[in-house]
């Protein structure tokens, strides 16, 4: 990488402290480089950003206290960013409550118990209960694949699986059907995953999925541990080649 010229470097304040970053970098990038915690769920390094989960919303004082997603907002000269406040923390907790209320997120009997990003966020952000009655959707569990299982009732619709399958694997086996509260993940023409002629059985979707919706067959409660270091590796290799 060539050293950026001076004009591309922006200085900004995060939680009262001075930081600087390249104009191509996002607030989230700068926060991570400096070990400032920001909760994220749909974002994962190596895939395109969606800006969908809204957990990384930060308040920009210099923009009329507007809330913007840190993952999609590029740094700008002189902005003052707040990563935590009572208001933001309340919003984040409530977003988690909404997620928990949307499906079956009974951790006690989940293969990802203890290795789940949603569960970890709930603890980290101090969500101690869900005020909204569970919506109790009945979604089909797809057990047809010989190696993997898709439990749509545990899905958080982060669309990481859709993006990794399209952007990295190039198969685009996954997509989302319907819309709003009825949206859910499908393979091909909403046909059984096991009979898919586009799935390469690479398992990338399983490994980058943040919760226990996409898992390896045969894992018992708490056994499903995911590895997604490959994603950054592939992304870096590609960048180098381009």
């Amino acid at each position, binding site marked *: 990488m060539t050293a950026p010229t001076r004009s591309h470097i922006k200085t900004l304040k995060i939680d009262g402290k001075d930081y600087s970053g390249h104009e191509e970098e996002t607030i989230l990038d700068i926060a991570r480089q400096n070990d400032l915690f920001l909760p994220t769920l749909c974002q994962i390094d190596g895939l395109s950003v969606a800006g969908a989960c809204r957990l990384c919303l930060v308040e920009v004082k210099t923009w009329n206290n507007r809330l913007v997603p840190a993952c999609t907002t590029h740094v700008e000269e002189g902005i003052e960013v707040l990563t935590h406040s009572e208001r933001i923390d309340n919003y984040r907790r409530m977003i988690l409550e909404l997620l928990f209320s949307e499906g079956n997120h009974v951790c006690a009997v989940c293969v990802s118990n203890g290795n789940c990003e949603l569960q970890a966020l709930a603890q980290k952000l101090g969500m101690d209960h869900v005020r909204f009655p569970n919506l109790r959707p009945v979604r089909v569990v797809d057990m047809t694949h010989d190696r993997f299982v898709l439990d749509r009732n545990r899905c958080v619709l982060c669309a990481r699986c859709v993006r990794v399958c*399209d952007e990295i694997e190039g*198969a*685009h*086996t*996954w*997509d*989302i*059907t*319907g*819309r709003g509260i009825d949206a859910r993940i*499908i*393979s*091909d*023409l*909403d*046909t059984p995953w096991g009979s898919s002629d*586009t799935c390469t059985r690479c398992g990338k979707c399983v490994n980058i999925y943040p919760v226990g919706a996409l898992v390896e067959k045969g894992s018992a409660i708490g056994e499903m541990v995911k590895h997604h270091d490959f994603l950054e590796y592939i992304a870096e290799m590609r960048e180098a080649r381009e």
Partner: protein
Amino acid sequence: MRNQTNIAAPSDDKRWKLVEATMRRNGYRPDALIETLHTVQESFGYLDDESLQYVARKLRVASSQVYGVATFYHFFTLKPQGKHVCAVCTGTACYIKGAEKLIEEVHDNYGITPGQTTPDGELSLVTVRCVGACGLAPAVVLDGETHGNMKPGQMSKELETAINKTGSAEPVSHTAIPEVMPQ
């Protein structure tokens, strides 16, 4: 690059020529997907797996993406419609003037809710966002024809007449369908 014209239509049904024409006009570009789905639905009345797969291949769009698009937009339907389609307008003006009562009436008489078709395939009930006949609210589009100022009771009569008129004869032309938006 593959030659997109070599992918054969699912059957020799002439309606595929219309679908093919839409895709050709758009250079088989992936962005012609929604346009093409419109032509399929106009020609066949609904979108089935076979047509979705065909369009996916032709336009080089992943089949899951085609399915995602087809189900995102409420105008598209993946189920065949009944011989008669009763579309109750649920735009704000019609709502204010009692559209809900009309839906209830169809339900009471035919046992179907919006999006459903009677088991004998005679009648489909759908709701439409706004047919633009706000001055005639509440409005119902029955087999493509707008009936304004509908009152419960009057609507049942219209439905009965429509269904008895054709009996089990010819299905109503699909050209009526683009005017309604299945939910």
